[in-house]
């Protein structure tokens, strides 16, 4: 009888496609919005993840998220190094400054100051130039998206000069870096060079990057650093989620995306539920005839569930495919960097689609299961 259910479903092509479209649309809308939401949230803390050569971040104890750390005294670096279990610790600066281009335009940029000797926290992949070129006077490396933002439409060219706080900066490399939340260019330079770019503050350093000795539990070491120095010490993962939690709790982003995702679910459920219900209603006489001829309710339910499952799988597949095609087609757009179809979004939306399908099947089957088979004798 599964075959009969399949034929009943596909017999009316327009309705069949309408049902699949309903689920596809809901899947597309929800997956795309969930993925963009996750991408944007990841962007807020993407620079934490970009630092792959240190697993601990130490900062002022009142820091709420990565863009807000106040400077801390240089002496804190020695105090952290003195905590038992710390393998090594280096200073780092992260801040925002204004860049004046040769054209006279201004651009706000994110500036990283990396410890001169180790360059811990430096970009992992260079597109043009060498990391070691940072040893040149006033040298900076910029991320690819930042270059396209600062000099749109222009070919990659090293040796470009611009000003940071009225001081000459020379471009010596272009690297790959995760897109930041604000989509501002990301500049990397040596810590000593950054001192020249960011004058005025009594202290420059606002982060200490550290690594635990082998065999030391990173989370316990963070607690030890905090208790011995009063500084906040977090693992990379903890700092990533702390930053994301800050944006989730203090911005309207989750509410806005949540509304869109919920609407996608409601519209998808409404379209699919209603169409499937009407589809079943139109086949009520046929279901009644089948019941009269000896098909029991269990088999009827299986038939309806099979129809719903087929619609769900096809619709979800098409929807996921469309979402993947969307992100693939926008992959090269600089402003959309870091936004892609995430497995978590696919799984989450898959569960949502399953709920839609089960709801639609319940609504549709209720009518059939309680149908009196004698209805077929009423002309």
């Amino acid at each position, binding site marked *: *009888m599964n*075959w*009969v259910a399949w*034929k*009943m479903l*596909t*017999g*009316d092509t327009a309705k069949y496609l309408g049902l699949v479209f309903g689920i596809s649309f809901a899947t597309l809308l929800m997956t795309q919005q969930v993925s963009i939401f996750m991408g944007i949230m990841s962007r807020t803390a993407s620079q934490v993840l970009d630092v792959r050569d240190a697993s601990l971040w130490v900062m002022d104890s009142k820091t709420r998220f990565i863009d807000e750390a106040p400077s801390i005294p240089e002496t804190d670096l020695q105090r952290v190094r003195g905590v038992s279990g710390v393998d090594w610790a280096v200073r780092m600066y992260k801040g925002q400054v204004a860049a004046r281009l040769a054209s006279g335009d201004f651009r706000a940029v994110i500036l990283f100051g990396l410890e001169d000797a180790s360059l811990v926290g430096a970009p992992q992949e260079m597109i043009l130039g060498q990391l070691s070129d940072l040893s040149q006077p006033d040298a900076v490396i910029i991320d690819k998206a930042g270059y396209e933002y600062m000099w749109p439409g222009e070919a990659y060219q090293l040796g470009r000069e611009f000003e940071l706080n009225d001081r000459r900066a020379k471009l010596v490399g272009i690297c790959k870096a995760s897109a930041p939340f604000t989509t501002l260019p990301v500049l990397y330079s040596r810590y000593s060079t950054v001192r020249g770019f960011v004058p005025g503050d009594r202290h420059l350093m606002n982060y200490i990057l550290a690594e635990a000795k082998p065999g030391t539990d990173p989370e316990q070491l963070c607690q030890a650093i905090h208790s011995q120095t009063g500084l906040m010490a977090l693992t990379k993962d903890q700092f990533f989620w702390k930053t994301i939690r800050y944006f989730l709790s203090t911005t309207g982003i989750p509410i806005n995306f949540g509304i869109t995702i919920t609407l996608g679910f409601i519209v998808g459920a409404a379209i699919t539920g209603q169409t499937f219900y009407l589809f079943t209603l139109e086949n009520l*006489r*046929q279901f*009644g*005839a*089948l*019941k*009269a*001829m*000896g*098909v*029991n309710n269990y088999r009827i339910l299986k038939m309806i569930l099979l129809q719903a499952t087929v619609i769900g799988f096809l619709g979800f597949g098409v929807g996921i495919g469309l979402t993947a095609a969307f992100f693939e087609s926008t992959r090269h757009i600089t402003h959309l960097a870091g936004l892609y179809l995430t497995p978590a979004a696919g799984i989450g939306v898959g569960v949502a689609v399953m709920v839609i399908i089960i709801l639609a099947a319940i609504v549709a089957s209720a009518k059939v299961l309680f149908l*009196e*088979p*004698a209805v*077929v*004798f*009423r*002309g």
Partner: protein
Amino acid sequence: MIETNNPTNSLIGSLAADVAVQCSGVTKVFGTGETQTQALRGIDLKINPGEMTLLVGPSGCGKTTLISIIAGLLNPTLGNVSVLGKRLDQMRGGRLVQFRARNIGFVFQQYNLLPALTAAENAAIPLLIAGEYRRSAVRAAGEELESVGLSGRSQSRPNQLSGGQQQRVAIARALIHKPRILVCDEPTAALDALSGHNVMQLLSQVAIQPGRAVIIVTHDNRVFQFGQRIIQMSDGVVVQDDSVTTQSPLLAHP
């Protein structure tokens, strides 16, 4: 898989003399209070296998209710019904559904063919319900369609067939699993006179078997001539019960 009954075998032959349907004091009441309607009022009836019985009467006389109860689609409010020696009121849920699937064939006024299936696939449904493989069921249905004169239309969909042809498909579907009771509800009501006549002729030729009772609900007096027994109902009771071995008064004044 359910074993179907071949009307030519000895089992059916031995059943030929037994009562196919026995109704005792069957009463059916619909609704409650002021909307209560008594559709059947203590019907006593025996229907023998091997003959075509027509249930006739004006609209609302209770003939469709009676046939629904005989087919196990409705329960009587009072009284009991035995079909092929089994008390339907004592069967519950799955057993009753299985009994219907094995023993009763249905022909509906509106055919109730599945529009997405071909004629052969529609006719194969009772065998699919019985658990037979699709391929062999459809092949058997093709042969059944030949027996009802639709040899060239097995791949046609219902919307490609005339009303008479659709009813033939429905008859093939009703007979394919060799049921011992065939229940037809107004099989000619949706057809023109000639098609209706042909359908009744077909039923006379292919449906009537020694071990099978054919019960037809109709108010179409043009088909009364095909009945071997005509039971006339009025207001929920049987008012006349004639075996049409001679000229029945119903044939003269239906």
